[in-house]
Structures are given as C-alpha cells and as structure tokens.
C-alpha cells in the first residue's frame, strides 16, 4: 500500500516546486517565514494536520539535543487537493526530508518548499506553479445568452465552472515587464518605480513593503479581502453568477474569505445606501457595469484604504477608480483588463491585463482564510 502511495505521489510530483517562490499561495508567506534563509530537516512524521488555511506536517527530528518536534507548513489543503494530494498521503511513522524556510521568530516551524519521502526520494505535496504558459483552450465558441451577450459564467443547464489559473498573479503596468515572483515581490528593488506611475509617497510605501518582503500584507496578517484586481489573481479562482432578472452579476471568490461582490447593470449610480461612498467605503468598492459589444465594462469606486489591492503591495487611496473590462473571447478564456485611476496615489492612469482559464465541471473551492475544518 505504501509503495502504491509513493508511486502515486511520485507520478504526481511531475508538477514540481521550482525553488523558493514558485508556488502561488492565497497570501504571501513572508510575513511568517524568512525566505532569505534555507533550512533542512530529516525525521519521522508524527501527525498531519489537514486544515485551512494551511496544512501542517508535524515531525520528530533527532539532533544533538535529543528529539524535537517541528511543524512544517504547506499550502492550503484546497490548493494541495487541486493537485491530487490528500490528508493521508503521509501518515505517522513515514520518514521524510524537508527543505524550506525557517520561521522569523525562530520557533520550530518551517515553510515546506520541498518535502520528500526519504526512502524513495519522491517529492510530496507539490503545488502547481502559477500559470506561465498559454492557457489551454478548445475550439468551443463563446457561450452566449439569447440576447447575444457572452455568458461570463455557466449558462442555465450547463455544467458548473469557475475561472482560475490567472496568467499573472501580480500587478504591474502593461508593458513594464519587471521581474517579480508570484507573490509580487520584485527581483530588483531598483525596478520599483517602473512597476506603475506612483507618486513619491506611494513609491516609498511600495519600496518599504517590498524591502520587508511583503510581510505586512493585511490579507496575510488579518485575512483582509483581496479587493480590486487582486481578486482575479488567485489560483483559487472566481465565479460569475448572472442574475439577469435583477440585472446584476455576483462575483464569488474562491480566495479571501469566500467574499462576493455585486456588479449592477440596472443603470443605478455607484453610491451607497446611506448617501454616498464616503459614508461606507468598501473593500470591493461599488460596481456598476454595462455592455460595450462583447465586453462588460465595469466602473468601480468607493474603496476603503484598509487592504492591498495588489499582491505586491502597490498602495492606493480612497480615490481609487477602476475601469474593468471583462470579455470571453472563447469558451475557455476570460480576458480581464483594468484601468487604474487614483490621483491620490498615481501620477496618471495606467492599465494592466491578463487571462484566466475556465475550469469546467468544477465547483469553486471552499477556501476560507480562517480554519474551516473545525
């Protein structure tokens, strides 16, 4: 049985971690672990804690000081299960070796970058990389409603599905092409000013966040929602539910705290119930949309300043105004474009775009920032 298990894990290990920052996570790990350092452990599994927000392997490591128990933290079970791993892939008594990052507080915790079965060398608990190549597409045409508008979700009677595998998991101006990892951490801090046209204070804040390796990300620290374009850069995906009778779109998030936002297409103004956006600025702002040909154009205002709207920590103010353009050029591709206007943080408007892939026949992952298995 164990051999079979290892065979399975070995074959699944084709999708391997490649180095330090290869896997996309729902939030950056830098807040807890020091990614500038490496550590290695070899020992025996004592317990596998398969719960959100992150799975943990507990292991006994024998050293000069005797036997010490370590906690090896991994991606969320939702993400690991998306790649075929299960809570019983490893069992108490299995011998493993781990390469990873030590915790910042020097406690016996490690972020597991590379977990292997000691005997076979098979790699375990690998998660797919962020989508780097072209999206998988089929010849299927764009699904459409009777009025001709593209369906951004599933049509009635069709199989469920959601959008995942974003081609970019960080935000920067189209054409900038500054090298970043999947968390939005710049390879070279000197490139910071080229990422987006930030005002001096915003550039200073951005550099500070980058130099602190994104450890202050409120989505990581406080489970704050991924408002703005960040919601379309999670592998956990988004799902459109179209309520055509009431002329609104529900955008459900697989990440964050399973939040949703509403895009109204009934002609209303983007103001709150109390009297205006100033009364109650929101994490996802207030969205109103209309169709321009095959593109749903959405204006979003009314954001609060309590979150990061990008994975890399580009700051914004409550003057943030997004113009989002959603199109579905074929059945399997959602094209997302966003124009960012924020005179409080940027010197001019700027834009970014990327694609997401349709995951048909699948249900949006039930990921919560907090533990949802208790």
């Amino acid at each position, binding site marked *: 049985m164990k051999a079979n298990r290892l065979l399975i894990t070995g074959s699944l290990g084709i999708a391997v971690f490649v180095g330090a920052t290869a896997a996309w996570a729902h939030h950056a790990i830098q807040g807890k672990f020091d990614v500038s350092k490496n550590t290695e452990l070899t020992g025996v599994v004592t317990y596998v804690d398969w719960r959100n927000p992150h799975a943990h392997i507990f292991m006994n490591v024998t050293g000069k000081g005797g036997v010490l128990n370590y906690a090896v933290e991994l991606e969320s079970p939702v993400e690991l299960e998306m790649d075929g791993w299960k809570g019983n892939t490893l069992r108490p008594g299995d011998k493993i070796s781990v390469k990873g990052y030590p915790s910042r507080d020097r406690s016996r915790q490690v972020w597991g970058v590379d977990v292997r079965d000691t005997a076979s060398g098979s790699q375990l608990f690998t998660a797919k990389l962020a989508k780097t190549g072209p999206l998988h597409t089929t010849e299927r045409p764009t699904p459409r409603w009777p009025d001709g508008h593209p369906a951004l979700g599933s049509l009635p009677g069709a199989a469920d599905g959601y959008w995942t595998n974003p081609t970019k998991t960080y935000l920067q101006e189209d054409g900038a092409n500054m090298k970043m990892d999947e968390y939005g951490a710049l390879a070279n801090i000197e490139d910071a000013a080229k990422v987006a046209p930030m*005002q*001096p*204070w915003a*550039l*200073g*804040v951005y550099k*500070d*966040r980058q130099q*602190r390796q994104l450890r*202050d990300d*409120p989505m990581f620290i*406080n489970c*704050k929602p991924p408002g703005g374009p960040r919601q379309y850069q999670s592998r956990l995906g988004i799902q459109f539910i179209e309520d055509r009778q009431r002329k609104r779109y529900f955008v459900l998030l697989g990440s964050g705290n399973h939040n949703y936002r509403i895009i109204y297409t009934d002609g209303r103004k983007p103001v709150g119930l109390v009297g205006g956006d100033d009364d109650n600025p929101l994490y996802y702002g207030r969205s109103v949309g209309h169709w321009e040909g095959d593109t749903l154009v959405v204006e979003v205002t009314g954001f609060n*300043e*309590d*979150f*990061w709207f990008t994975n890399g920590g580009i*700051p*914004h*103010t*409550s*003057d943030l105004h997004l113009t989002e353009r959603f199109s579905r050029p074929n059945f399997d591709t959602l094209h997302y474009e966003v124009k960012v206007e924020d*005179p*409080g*943080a940027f010197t001019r408007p700027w834009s970014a775009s990327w694609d997401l892939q349709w995951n048909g026949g699948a249900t949006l992952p039930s990921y919560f920032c907090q533990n949802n298995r208790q």
Partner: protein
Amino acid sequence: MKIPRSLKTVPAFCALALALTLPVVAQEGFPLKGSWIGVWEGNTQQGNDVLLVMNWDGKNISGTINPGTDNIKIDKASLDPNGWKVHIEADAKNKQGAALRYVIDGTIQNLEQPNRGIVGTWQNQSGKGKFEVHRQ
C-alpha cells in the same frame, strides 16, 4: 449643583480608556491620513495632550490640531518619503490671545504598522519640546 471633584475626572478617564481600548483601524493608503493622539510635552499654552487629524487630497495635506477644543488649522504640512520626515506648521493663539506659530518636525516610526507614530519636536515663540503622536 456642585459636582464632586472625584466625579469630574470620570469623563476624562472614560475618554482616555476608550481611546486606549479602541482597535486601531488599518490605513494602508497615505501614511499621514487619519487621527493621531499623543503629547507635545511642555506645552503650557495648549496643554500636554494633542490630537491631530490629517487628510490627503492627492496633492496637499490638510488637517486640524485639537479639533473641538483649540481648532488649530494646519497651514502647511509635508511628507518626505526619503526618511519619512514630517513637517507641520500651524497658527494658534496663546491664553492671552497673542499669535503663536507652531512648527512640528518629526519622523514616521513603524510606517508599516496601523498604530504608526510621528516622533520629533514642536516649537513656537514661547517654548519647545518633544512631540509624539500615534495613529488611532
């Protein structure tokens, strides 16, 4: 009706307790925006405690010192991201009604924290001292 001295301190104590127990609201935008509470030590004109409210319109910093009591409007304020230096100027009056020009210079401490601080000095024609406020 004469209020016992011990009871007079209750509202002040409650206000202080409330200020200390309220959670700091995260503010990930312009670093100076929001309410700040702290001290300008040795200020015999306005008292030791100071409250600062600042805003950012994309070009200028505006705000008020001690809103509701002294209502000192901030005339000039700047933030230099190189070192996160803060400079504030404001006109007030002393207890005799004479003009006072406050100049506050400080540095943002713990920029990344919700309860970040501004630490530095204040001065006017009649005095100077340590200035320290933290974002609420």
